[in-house]
Structure formats: C-alpha cells, structure tokens
C-alpha cells in the first residue's frame, strides 16, 4: 500500500546528491535530464499515490509510513515517518507537478547561465525539502524540511552571487525568516515539554484532551507556531524579505512563490488547525494579519515598476487571502486558493521570465510595452494568469477560490464586516495591479524588441499552467453556481468543514456579483489609467497627497526603513561599540596593571651598584627594626 510514497521526497533528494557529486562533469543535457527527470518521476509517483488514495482510501483516511527511527533521547524519539492524508496528497501533487513544470522551463531558460548543474542541484533540494515538510509525520521532521526550504531559498536567491546586492537579498531572506523559525522552534520545545510528543496527530489529540478552548498554553503554542508561519509565508510584519527575494533567477521566484516556501506557513496552520481552533485569539490574529497583509502588499503592488516586484507583492497579498481564510476557519478554501494560486502564480512568473530573458534582463515595465505581437503565446497565457489573479468572474480558477474566502471572511462566525471589507478592497486592488501589469507589458507602443524567442520547452509549461489555471476552478463551485464540492469533500477527511459554510448559502450570490463587479471595475480602472489615458495616472501622481501615497506604497509602506531604524541601526551601533570587545576591557585592564607594575620595578634596576647597596642597607635596617620593635 502506497509503495511509492517514500520515493516522492527521495527522488528529488537523489537528484540533488547526483548533481552535487557529478553534476559539474555532466553535460548540460545530462544535468537537465537528472534535474528535471527526478522531479518528473517524483510527480508521477505523487500522481499514482494520489490516485491510489482516491480509489482505495486507507483506514481513517490517513496512512503513516515509518521509514526508520531517527534518534532516541529519553522519551524523545522522533521517527523519519511520512504521513499521508488528503491535505498532504493535495500538497505533494501541487509541489511536484508545478515544481516539475518550473524545472522543465528552467532547463531551457537557464541554459546559458554559469552554474547550470548547481542551479538544478539547489532546485532539487528545494523541492525535496518542501516534500519532507508537507509529508512529515512529526514536527521535528517537518522542521527539517522547513529549514531545508529556508536554506535553499538562501542559496537560490543568491544564485548570482557575484553581485553583492543579490547576496544581501539572500541574507535578508534568511535572517527575516529565521526570526519566525526561532519562534517556531520555541513552539516545538513548548509543545514537547507540555504534551510530551511531537507527533502531529498525537499533539492534536492530547491538546484537545488537556487544553480547554482559550487556555493560555494553547494560545502560547499557537502563537509561536504562527510566528514561524509568518516568517516563511512573508506576512506582516515579516514580509519584507519577499520583494527583495526577486534578486534570484525567475524560475526560482516561481518555485518560491508558487509551489514551495511561502505556502509552508499556510500548510503549517492548516495542518495544526485544531491547535488554532483551541486558541481563538490567535486564530483571530491570523485573520487580521492576513487582511492587513493583503491590503498592504496589494497597494504596494499597484505602484511598482519592476514586473517581478509586482508579482512578489501580489504573492504576499494572495497568501494574505489564504491567511484570512485560515483565520475565519475556512480551511479548505485556504488550501483551494493555494492550489489555484500555485498554478496562476507559477504561470505569471514563467511568463514574466520569458519577457525578462527576451529583453536582456530588463525588468522595468515602463520600458516594455507592445510585446503582444512579438510573444503571442506568452501574452495569451500571461493574460490567463493575470485574469485568474484578478479573479475574473466565472471563467478563472482565481474567482472560484477567492470569492469563497471573501464570503467566509464576512459571514463566518469568526469573520466580520471589517475582514470582509478588507477582502473586497483587496479584490479591487488585485484586479488593478494585475491588469496594469498586462497593459504596461503587452499593450501600447512597442518600446523594446525581443532578442530571444522561447522554445517549446518554455511554451509547454506555460500552456499547461494556463489550462490548469482555468479548469482547476471547476472542481469547487459555490452553491449558487452548480455547487460542485469535489475539492472540499476530498479535504473533509483532513480538515474540519468551514463553520456555517454549508448551513446556509446566505448572501453568496450577492458576494459573487459584488466580487465580479469589483473585479471588472478594477480592470476598467487599469485600462483607463495605464492604457487609454496614461496622462490621468501621471496627473494623479503629480498630486501631492497621491505622490506621498505613491512613495509610501512604492517603498512597501516604509517597513524596510522602519526596521532599519528600529533593529538594524541599534544592532549596528551596538556592534560598532562592541567591536573593541567591551568584556575584554577587564582582561586587558589586568594586563595593563601588571605591565605598569613591571615598568615601575624595572626602573629600579638602574645599573648603579650604590643604589643596590642602598636598597640592601635600607632593607636590612627595616628588617632589623621590625625584628627589634615587634
């Protein structure tokens, strides 16, 4: 039963090992075969496992494969064990399949880069770590994957390490996510200390038994895990690393944003949903953070000039939607949005990669334009991706995944008016920046010419992802539009149903119409401002208030500057003060004292014999005086 399960993470890992040891000696073709093939086979194994899971579900809809014991320290005995349930099936399918398409694309896109085998080695390790993360049966094993993902993001963001700025972006990503990782590690210690296990299902059972709803321990544990999730998923206040992570090659961005890394936080919260249900304040905070993040990042995305930064901010924003869904208890909606987002965001990044590579690494959208004619297929697939991101009604996957989130945010018992309003404003912002990107890049006057035409290896992933971005929406339709529930029914064995979701479809129609109208308005606004009357946009920016907002949004709401002032500045100050080793002052002081005494004593050795004789005489007199008078 599930004989292929262990192969899913093992194959990319094997690919990594092969590429590390003999990669530099292989030809480019050999590297591509190993690098892409390992993920491809892993995807096949994942699909077969998924089919088997659907056809003959294991007892209790969960299957644990214990590979071997890992370590044994007292009662602490984590195992290398894989846990397969509906949630992890969805995750491995997306990670391997989208990962495979991105690898396929990279095989062509990265061919001229130095370090081709190094690139694929890191990419394989990245996918392997992510698979470990989503398949892990205990939190220690999950943490291994979690850190592996962080390491690979560092290596890949700094892939072009010869430029110092790329290295700094990599370090920033590593350090900012590390803040979250530290919180998560403390969370693991706390969970083990209070519940005596780190096996995820066991934790959930014991937590329900031992901790009442809203108890301090549950809140602390959930908050610490949330800290880890915020770092990896780039949510406020730890979102600053993601826009800078664009320093890496475009396929890396696609992999980080679509299939791996940033969705780890969403997965972690969904996986430990019982813990979050036990801690209502923390779950509420998840929703608030998601709502704040989706707005903050959305507004920043509207004003960026770098096409990849637009996509980066849009990722932060869309993950914000997922957090919003998690916060209001719409677990399966969050995962569904993760799935559609994986497809359309990978598609958008790969499309942007074609444009950037074709224009000699030009990323400024204002220097593009009119590429529709030159890259027709890229244009159409990019348009599909952008439409899905903007949640164009009825035909795109993004609509069917985003609309329920907004609806839940407003209607669910844990949601509310403000969260719903935030979601709706986010829909407007999303559609504006999505189509701003499309209009600036592909419409208007041609300002640059493509020097490198994509080949079939690049077109294939684009077309497949475009098709999937559209049809994926039809496996989960709202009550009013066919009420197809394939996805949430499948997940119902792993995740609790959303509260009040099925009780009454109240107001769902209104929300669909509202979302649809808002999206269309957003597209129209983008059309007016950035295609038909660009003068309006210029006039708007010239206005004082708008200019201030523009500057604020462009800099990502000044978070970077705030953190520079708040944390980096004082740290550098302390480091500069301490660069002369404050603690060492004590010891160098002792040494200095000894040296001073030494100098005093050595000055008495004058070389004049009479002085020595005087010393002896005085000493003798003193000695005798002491003997006589005491």
């Amino acid at each position, binding site marked *: 039963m599930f004989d292929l399960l262990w192969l899913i993470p093992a194959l990319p890992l094997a690919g990594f090992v092969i590429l590390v040891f003999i990669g530099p000696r292989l030809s480019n073709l050999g590297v591509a075969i190993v690098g892409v093939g390992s993920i491809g086979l892993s995807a096949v194994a994942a699909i077969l496992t998924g089919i088997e899971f659907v056809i003959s579900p294991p007892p209790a809809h969960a299957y644990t494969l214990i590979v071997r014991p890992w370590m044994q320290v007292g009662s602490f005995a984590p195992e290398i064990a894989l846990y397969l349930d509906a949630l992890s099936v969805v995750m491995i399918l997306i990670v391997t399949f989208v990962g495979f398409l991105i690898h396929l694309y990279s095989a062509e896109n990265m061919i001229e880069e130095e370090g081709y085998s190094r690139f694929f080695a890191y990419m394989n390790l990245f996918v392997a770590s992510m698979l470990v993360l989503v398949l892990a049966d205990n939190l220690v094993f999950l943490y291994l994957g979690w850190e592996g993902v962080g390491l690979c993001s560092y290596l890949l963001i700094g892939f072009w390490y010869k430029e110092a700025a790329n290295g700094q972006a990599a370090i920033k990503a590593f350090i900012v996510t590390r803040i979250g990782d530290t919180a998560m590690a403390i969370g693991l210690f706390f969970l083990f200390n209070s519940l005596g296990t780190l096996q995820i299902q066991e934790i959930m059972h014991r937590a329900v038994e031992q901790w009442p709803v809203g108890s301090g321990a549950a809140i602390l544990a959930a908050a610490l895990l949330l800290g880890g999730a915020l770092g990896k998923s780039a949510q406020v206040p730890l979102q600053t690393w993601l826009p800078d992570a664009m320093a890496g090659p475009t396929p890396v961005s696609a992999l980080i944003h679509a299939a791996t890394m940033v969705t780890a936080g969403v997965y972690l919260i969904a996986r430990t949903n019982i813990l979050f249900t036990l801690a209502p304040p923390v779950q509420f905070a998840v929703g608030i953070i998601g709502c704040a993040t989706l707005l903050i990042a959305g507004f920043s995305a509207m004003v960026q000039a770098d096409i990849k930064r637009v996509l980066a901010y849009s990722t932060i924003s869309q993950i914000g939607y997922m957090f919003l869904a998690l916060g209001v208890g719409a677990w399966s909606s969050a995962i569904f949005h993760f799935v559609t987002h994986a497809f359309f965001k990978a598609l958008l990044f790969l499309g942007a990669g074609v444009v950037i590579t074709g224009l000699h690494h030009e990323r400024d959208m204002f220097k593009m334009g009119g590429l529709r004619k030159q890259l027709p297929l890229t244009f159409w697939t990019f348009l599909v991706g952008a439409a899905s991101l903007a949640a164009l009604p009825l035909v795109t996957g993004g609509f069917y995944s985003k609309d329920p989130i907004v609806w839940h945010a407003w209607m669910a018992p844990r949601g509310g008016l403000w969260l719903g309003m935030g979601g709706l404003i986010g829909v407007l912002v999303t559609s504006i920046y999505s189509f701003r990107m499309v209009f600036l890049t592909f419409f208007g006057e041609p300002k640059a010419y493509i020097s490198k035409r994509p080949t079939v290896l690049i077109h294939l992933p684009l077309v497949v992802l475009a098709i999937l971005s559209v049809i994926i929406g039809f496996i989960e339709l709202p009550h009013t539009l066919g009420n197809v529930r394939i996805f949430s029914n499948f997940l119902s064995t792993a995740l609790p149903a959303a509260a009040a979701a099925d009780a009454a479809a109240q107001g769902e129609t209104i929300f669909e119409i509202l979302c649809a109208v808002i999206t269309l308005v957003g597209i129209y606004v983008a059309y007016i401002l950035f295609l038909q009357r660009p003068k309006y946009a210029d006039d708007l920016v010239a206005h004082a208030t708008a200019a201030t907002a523009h500057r604020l949004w462009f800099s990502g709401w000044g978070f970077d500057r705030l953190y520079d002032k708040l944390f980096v500045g004082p740290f550098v100050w302390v480091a500069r003060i301490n660069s002369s080793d404050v603690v060492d002052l004590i010891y160098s002081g002792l040494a200095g004292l000894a040296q001073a005494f030494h100098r005093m004593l050595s000055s008495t050795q*004058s*070389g*004049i014999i*009479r002085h020595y*004789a005087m010393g002896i005489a005085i000493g003798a007199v003193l000695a005798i005086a002491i003997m006589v008078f005491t």
Partner: protein
Amino acid sequence: MPAVPLEHGLILAGILFAIGTAGVLVRRNIIFMLMSVEIMLNAAGLAFVVAGSARQQADGQVMFIFILAMAAAEVAVGLALVLQLYHRFATLDADAARTMRG
C-alpha cells in the same frame, strides 16, 4: 688588665660598620668601595671577638679567623673585577658600569 666592657666594644663595632656602609654608599671610586666593605667585615669581626671575650669562649675568635679567610677570598675576586672594570671603561667610577640597568 681590666676587661673592656662589652658595650664599648659593640658600640665601636657599630660605628665602624656604619662608617663602612656610608663609604660603600657614597663613594664612587670602586677601590674605596672595596675598602669600605673591608671595614664593614672587620666591624663584624670585632663584634665577634668582643662577644667571645665577654663570654670567655673561643667561638668568637674562630669566627674572626673565618672572616679573615673569607675577606682574603673576597679581595682576590674584588680586585680582579676592579681590573676588568678598569680595562673595559678606563675608569674606576662604579657608576660607569651601568649598562646592566633594566
């Protein structure tokens, strides 16, 4: 013959010793320093002899002979050093040999 009182002898020895010490400390000519050391040795010898006579024992005189032998050896070494000093610095000033200062 009336015996010299012990105190007188010891006071004389003390005066001699003080003179010798002062000579060592204030003279710069190394010959005179050597002679002052001799005076100090003899002052110590006088103290031994006076004490021996006061106690009617021979130990004091034994010690004096011992001191005489030692003084002879000391003069031999000391004069050799004086010659070396004179060779090297062409002076008898003890302060000239201050290259050994720390």
